[in-house]
Every structure is written in C-alpha cells, then in structure tokens.
C-alpha cells in the first residue's frame, strides 16, 4: 500500500463547486506563515498574564500573600479571588442544565476557599512580559491545608468516600436511568447472556495550539474586544457579559485562525474572564497564552468511563436486549453539563436492532481536571463497549465476528429507524437514512476480510502474529438548534459570507465559499468568508459535534438562494424586463435575449443599498443580502465501519497497523478533499486513543503525564495510510443532504484496533477490556496467560 489514496485537488472551471476536490482558500497565508493565531496579536501597550496554580488535588486555601509579587518591577496587577469585581467572583455559569444533574458546579475564575484539582488557578499576575509575570507567580506565598482526595470514580461512590467538593453531600454530579422495551423478558428468555466490564481512560485533544486570549478595552466607546482561540464566540460572549456584567452591545469576541480545537476549546475557561477583567481594570490590552503544561492540567479531557455491559442473545446470534451500568468520571466540574456520558449511552445501540435496553449512568466528581467532549464525545467508549461485548458474544456462539454483526444490522428499508431513546437534542433518537449492511460489506470487501484467515496462518507459520478487527458506529451529527449565515453582495461585486461558527482547521471557508459561489454563479475566489466574529452575525451556537456543514452550510445555501432571487428581481427592474429574461453568470446579471444588456453585481449592490432618486421594485427590501438560521428538525445520523489488520510483536506488545479501511457515509460530500482529511485525521486521533494516549493520575489525583515525553501523541510512523470508502446516502433532513464527518474516524478506532490485537493473540486466550491498550499492558496480560513459557514456533 502507498499514499496514493491522497488524490490532489482538481481544478474546476464549469461554475460547479459542490462535490469537487477544490483546493482550500485558507491555505495560502497559512503556508507562508501569515496566519493570525491569537498569540500572533501584538497590540500597543499590551501586558501579559500568568496564573499561579494549586499544586494540590484538593486543599483549603488558608492564606495568600501577594505583596512580594506586587512589588516586583514590571508587575501591573496581581489578582486573587477577593480582588475580582463581584460578578467575576461567581462561578462560570451553567450552560447545559439538565434535570438529571444534582450539582451543576462550574469553576471559579480564581479559587476562593478550596482548590479541587491540581492546576486550579489561585492568583493571576499581569506584567510587562510573560517572563516577569511568571517570576512574580513564584513570589506569591499560598498556605494550603491539603484535604482528602476523590481520585477513583468507583471508590468515590462508596459511603463515606472523601468529597471532591467539601460542601457537597456526595460525589454524584448526575444520575440517570434510561431504557426502552421489556428488558427483563429479553434476558429471561435468552439463549445466551454475555457480560463484561470495560475501562477507558482519559486523554486530551491536544490541539497543537493551546488556549489563549487577548482582551482590549476602549474607554472612549465602552467597547470590550476579546480575541480567543476557541470554538464558539457567541457562547464566550454570553459568559463574558455575565461575568463582567457587561452590555452585550459593547462586547465583541473574535476568533481569527484557531490552531485546532477538537472539543476542549468549547467550554468557557477562567483565564478568558481574567484577561477581560484585567484589561478593563488596567485600561491596557492583556494577553494570556496557555503553555502545554497548563493544557495538560487545566484544559478539559475525556474518556474516563467504567462500563459493565451485558447482552442477551438468541441461539442464532440475534440480540434480544442490552443492559449496562456506566460510571463516568467528570473531574472536578461540569463545564459542559452531562452531555458526554449521555451521548455515550445513546450511542450504544449503534447500527444494530436492539429490542430492549436498560442503562444506568452515574456521573461522578473527582479531584481531577474537568472533562467535556473530545473528538468523538463519549461515542468511542460506547462503541468500544458494544463492539467488544459483541466480540465476546461471537466467541461464545462460535460465530464469525462479522457474521454476528451482519445478522443484527438495521436494514435500509427500516429507515427512518426509531431507536427508542431520546437523543441529546431532546428529540427522539431516530436514524434518518443510511445503508448499514452495504457499509459493513464495503469495508469487509476492501479489507479482504474473507482472505484474512489465510494471511494470518501464513504469517503465524513464520512466527508472526496478525489480527483483524472491525467496529461500526452510528453518530448523531448536525445537531440544532441552529447556526446562521449572512450572504451579502458587496458594492465591489464580491460576495461576503458571515457566520458565527468558528473553524479550527475544518476548511469551512472553502466549503461555504463553494456553496455560495455555485448558487450565485461566481468564481470561488470572489467569495470572502468571515467566521468567528460576534459582530458579523448576531447569534451563533458554535463549532462542535460535527454540526457546522449541516447547520451553517445549509444556512449559506438557503441565504444565497434568496440573494440570487433578489439579484434577479432588481436586475429585471433596472433592465426593464421580465425576471425570466435574466440570467446570472460571471458576476453579472444579463438579459437572455440581449446579453449586452447587463449589470454587474457591484452595481446592483450599490443600488440595493440605497441611492437617492432610485426606487425599488415592489416587494424588494434593501440590500442584496440575507441572513438565514437553518434549524434542523432533528440530528442527522452518519455511520461507518472500520476494519483494521495489524501485526503485534509478542515480546513487546507493540503494534504495526498493516491495513486500515474506513467505509463511511456522511451524506452528500461538498468537498471530498476536505472530507478525506477529516476522516484520516480523526482516525489518527482514534489510533492515539487505542494504544498511546494515556493521561495518568496517581492515587492522590496528581497528574503524572504532563508533557509530550510522558503522554504520547501519534507520530508519522504510528499512523498508517488509511483507505477510505465513501458511501453517499443524502440526508433527507436538510436541503444539501449533508451529514457531519469530523468525528466519525475516531469513534470506532479503539474498538477495532483492540479487537485486532486480541485476535492476533487469540491462541493465548488473552482478553483485552481497556483502552488505551498500551504495550506494557499487553505484555502483562501475555505474561499472566503464560505466553512466554511457550516458544513462538514449535
């Protein structure tokens, strides 16, 4: 296999852009080093912040002495909780309330009485440079009284367990029991019941750019501007308005280039409030840029879950019911409600017909950094539990793993398929479209699953261990309630598209330009897409949950259609002809019968924006522009199957992935070049989750992997060439027929890889129940199983 699956971009000159491998409009400046990331911003008189953080996982703050820090030359201010204005002494507001949440606790900007994870900020210094600010942090004396620690989410549920928050009655953040069908009958009459407990440990997103914020206050206008490396500018604006008690009309959040996000840049963090408070207080711009150690300590993480799952089956392998109980370690706070574990629960059924299900979920506080969605958002854990238990069921029944799954797949004629749950968007979890059997088969065919037994036997005869694994998923994407876009013809004839959704590398600017250019019959280069600026559009939800092309993309599409109609109407009025006589092309409206009679878009825009002496046709409102907020009726569900073939070194537990096939269906593709990138990149993330990325804490909840030497991200030599099979079942739920694609690759990766590892070592009977499955664990399991007492070859 080579890298030939990467097909370079192609040129398009027929005015059609949707479905084409169009080169990205973002790239030129990024390749020249001319990006505008938040730390690239240099404002006159700018000061720099640094945070002093608690070294304890849980401690009472006895006293803080900042005198020496304040006295240091170059220091402009030192803030503790008591120094903050009253509204900023509140906790970060709850964004996702839910009746199942018992204690909806957000973080304070600076801890007031107790710190509840190692890394929680207790003081914030603002100085002439970051260097001086860090010097000053070292001069602050904090007296702590260490408190007992909630470190293990299972032990945290025991009576009398140490409390994460001293004022709470226990460590349960949220609790829910959900299900459908007759679960008792499903298990009572079952031919087989298989059960297992699975553990998945947390990692983090580790966008290559850390978090960062700059705030600037203009006393003359009362305007506060905040630049952020985030995912949801309007969400950050709402929180800033609350924490600073600020007039929203005088508050602007801007996200220029963002160096990756993958989920954790979505919640609101204390440091953003702190730079804003300081900028207002000092009347100087203030910058704070997170360093990587701070990212390890304070930026949200995900995946910590313990699952006990049981499946009841018929003798022929058909599933009768699934019962599970799951404990989710949320860390010390709920920055994104209980969304992640709830998504886990509702993702469990996957592409399979499951007549009955019962799930019991407990969300637990521990004295660790908080968790919130990381690429995949609770789904990788669900797919891991479900696919691993199906592997066990296949072993129990003596049936091929793919065959067992095939017998349970939802058939295309069953669409739309009502799973039985209520999804996170509050709507019934109803799969809208897709051909799951075709997708599974495509993956198996491309991977030559049928020929694997032969390959495995041949390799084994040479003393090598080959395994194959598969996993499938269904993912709710394109969640509402809405995302908006404004499409405007400017007086220079160019098209502006404005949306609140902020890209962090997904190529939205290209995708939206493709949609708008095709509707308005202009070249792609004539479209300027402006993202992530709260002054550009009044409302926005944010870039997360694989929702932007569905929501904002359709908004661009629908708004552009209105603008096209306005162009035609105004041109017909000006050219004194019937609207059917107008044709659009090359940035102008012309008469079909007399192409010399034409008006440029710029000229029409000029007229549409109001000129004395010119009137409008009847029913025409000012401006060649339209704002649309596309509001989907429910989420749209993408699906996929991963098949992984790998070799494992028995002596070291190291794997080498030999073939990775991903068949996926994310509906209509706007730009296959970008979609390929999303699929491959998200698989790389999943490979990290499967065998490398392990955020570790000791028994006292002290983080012990806080740099890239201790916490391993996949390198170029860890990620194989991925083979992608695109299936395109258009979603019936939106005009473009699109579904989300940003997370699909991550979701089945750990399940498929660990399945393949287990398969490779099947002769030793080792069972793997955890992710990440790091080499030393493979070694331990093999040693326990006595593998090293027998030679590899007889």
């Amino acid at each position, binding site marked *: 296999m*080579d*890298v030939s*699956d*990467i097909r*370079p*971009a192609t040129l398009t000159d027929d005015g059609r852009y949707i479905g084409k491998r169009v*080169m*990205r409009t*973002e*790239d*030129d400046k*990024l*390749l*020249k*080093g*001319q*990006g505008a*990331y938040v*730390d*690239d911003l*240099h404002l006159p008189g700018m000061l720099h912040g640094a945070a002093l953080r608690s070294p304890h996982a849980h401690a009472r703050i006895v006293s803080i002495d900042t005198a020496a820090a304040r006295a240091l030359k170059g220091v402009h201010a030192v803030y503790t909780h008591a120094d903050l204005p009253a509204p900023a002494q509140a906790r970060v507001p709850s964004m996702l309330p839910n009746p199942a949440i018992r204690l909806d606790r957000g973080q304070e900007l600076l801890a007031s009485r107790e710190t509840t994870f190692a890394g929680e900020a207790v003081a914030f210094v603002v100085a002439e440079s970051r*260097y001086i600010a860090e010097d000053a942090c070292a001069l602050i004396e904090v007296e702590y009284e260490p408190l007992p620690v909630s470190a293990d989410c299972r032990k945290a549920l025991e009576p009398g367990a140490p409390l994460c928050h001293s004022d709470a009655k226990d460590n349960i953040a949220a609790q829910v029991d959900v299900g459908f069908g007759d679960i008792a009958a499903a298990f009572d009459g079952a031919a087989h019941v298989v059960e297992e407990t699975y553990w998945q440990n947390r990692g983090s*997103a*580790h*966008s*290559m*750019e*850390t978090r960062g914020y700059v705030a600037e206050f203009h006393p003359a206008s009362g305007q506060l501007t905040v630049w952020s490396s985030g995912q949801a500018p309007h969400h950050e604006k709402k929180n800033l308005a609350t924490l600073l008690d600020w007039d929203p009309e005088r508050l602007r959040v801007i996200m220029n*280039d*963002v*160096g*990756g996000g*993958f989920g954790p840049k979505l919640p609101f963090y204390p440091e953003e409030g702190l730079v804003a408070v300081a900028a207002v207080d000092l009347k100087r711009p203030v910058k704070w840029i997170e*360093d*990587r150690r701070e990212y390890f300590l304070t930026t949200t993480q995900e995946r910590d879950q313990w699952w006990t799952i049981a499946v009841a089956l018929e003798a022929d392998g058909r599933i009768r019911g699934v019962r599970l109980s799951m404990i989710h370690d949320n860390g010390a706070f709920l920055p994104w409600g209980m969304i992640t574990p709830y998504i886990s629960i509702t993702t469990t059924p996957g592409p399979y017909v499951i007549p009955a299900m019962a799930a019991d979920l407990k969300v637990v506080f521990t004295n660790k950094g908080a968790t919130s969605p990381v690429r995949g958002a609770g789904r990788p854990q669900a797919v891991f539990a479900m696919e691993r238990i199906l592997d066990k069921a296949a072993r129990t029944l003596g049936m091929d793993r793919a065959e067992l799954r095939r017998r349970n797949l939802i058939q295309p004629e069953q669409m739309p398929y009502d799973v039985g749950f209520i999804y996170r968007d509050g709507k019934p979890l109803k799969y809208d479209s897709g051909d799951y059997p075709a997708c599974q088969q495509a993956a198996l065919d491309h991977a030559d699953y049928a020929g694997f037994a032969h390959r495995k036997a041949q390799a084994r005869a040479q003393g090598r261990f080959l395994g194959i694994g598969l996993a499938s998923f269904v993912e709710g994407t394109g969640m509402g309630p809405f995302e908006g876009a404004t499409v405007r013809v400017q007086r220079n004839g160019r098209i502006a598209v404005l949306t609140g959704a902020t890209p*962090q*590398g*997904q*190529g939205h600017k290209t995708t939206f330009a493709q949609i708008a250019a095709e509707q308005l019959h202009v070249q792609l280069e004539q479209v300027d897409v402006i993202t992530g600026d709260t002054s550009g559009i009044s409302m926005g939800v944010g870039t997360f949950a694989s929702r932007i092309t569905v929501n904002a993309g359709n908004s661009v599409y629908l708004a552009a259609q209105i603008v096209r109609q306005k162009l035609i109407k105004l041109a017909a009025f000006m050219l004194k002809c019937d609207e059917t006589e107008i044709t659009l092309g090359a940035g102008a409206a012309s008469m079909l019968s007399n192409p010399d009679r034409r008006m440029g878009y710029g000229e029409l825009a000029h007229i549409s924006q109001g000129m004395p002496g010119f009137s409008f046709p009847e029913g025409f409102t000012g401006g060649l522009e339209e704002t649309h907020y596309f509001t989907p009726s429910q989420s749209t569900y993408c699906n996929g199957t991963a098949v992984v073939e790998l070799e494992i070194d028995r002596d070291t537990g190291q794997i080498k992935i030999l073939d990775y096939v991903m068949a996926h269906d994310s509906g209509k593709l706007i730009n296959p*070049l*970008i979609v*390929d*990138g999303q699929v*491959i*990149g*998200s*698989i*790389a*993330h999943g490979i990290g989750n499967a065998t490398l990325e392990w955020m570790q804490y000791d028994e006292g909840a002290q983080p012990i992997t806080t*740099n*890239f*030497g201790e916490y391993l*991200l996949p*390198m*170029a*030599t860890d*990620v194989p*060439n*991925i083979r992608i099979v695109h299936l395109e079942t258009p979603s019936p739920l939106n005009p473009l027929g699109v579904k989300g694609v940003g997370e699909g690759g991550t979701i089945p990766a750990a399940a498929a890889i660990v399945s393949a590892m287990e398969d490779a070592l099947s002769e030793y009977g080792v069972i793997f129940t955890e992710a990440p499955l790091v080499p030393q664990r493979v070694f331990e399991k093999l040693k326990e199983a006595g593998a090293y007492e027998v030679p590899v070859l007889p």
Partner: protein
Amino acid sequence: MDTRKITTVVNGVTYEREVETRRTLGDFLRHELELTGTHYGCEHGVCGACTVLLDGRTARSCLTLAAQVDGHEIRTVESLARADGTLDELQTAFRECHALQCGFCTPGMLMTLTELLGETDDPSEEEIREAITGNLCRCTGYQPIVAAALLAARRLREAKAGASIQHKE
C-alpha cells in the same frame, strides 16, 4: 536583567539587537521581529511547531536562546515563498494534497521537509515519515503530508532534469 548584544541574519536580513539572555529564539522571532509564522506548541522541544533552520540545519527555536544565535543565520517559514509571493514546490504540494488543516504545525513541518528535500532529492515514504517524527500534527493524520512531500520531491527532480537538459542544449 541580564542582556546580550547579538547580530543575526534572519531570512536574509541582518538584525542587531540587545536581548535578554533568558529570551528564547522563538519568542525573539515571534514577538520582537514579529515573524509570527514560527509557532510554539509545547515549549519543551517535542512537538516541532517551532522548527527553524539554524545555519541550514533544523533547530527547535523553543529550546534555543536568542543569545545563542549571535553570528548565525536563521531561516523561518516566511522565507519559503518565492519573491513574487507564489508558493514554492513544497508549499504548493501541501496545498494540493490538503496537507494542512489548522495550519499550526505547518511551518515546522515545512522547515523539516525543506531540510530533507535539500539532502535527498528522492526520499522514500519511510524516510519522509521518519524525518517528521519530530513534528506532531493533530489534524491531518500525516498521510497527506507524506503525499505532499513525495509530490514536491518528484516535481523538483523533474524540474532539475528539465533544467539540465536545457543546459546541454
């Protein structure tokens, strides 16, 4: 504050500056010369986003002090594009192969691969992968970067072959 006077050539321009001895080269480039194309991803020498060429060899600008480059020559990502503003072969291939998404690791990747393509005109896929193990990318899964490096190497070879044929004529 302990300072040193340094003279350094960055992208062909000579700078004489008084720098704090503890100031890193990356901070000097980014915040003093405002060459912000070089990025900091980890500040402990693992991620490679801050990679620059120091006298033609890759170096971590986060682990190098500005005071250390006195009398030395630096190249950053800003030097790669041609004088007319068009992209060089490697940058062009990156764009065509979608070898960047968020773009944050890209400058470091480009500098490492610029060094590689200067050393060998026909690198294998394995050599390219090995060369960029010191550059972490969280977006692309590396495959498009490898494809772009292979494409750029091929075009550079073809251009060289074409040039030598012309020369003979």
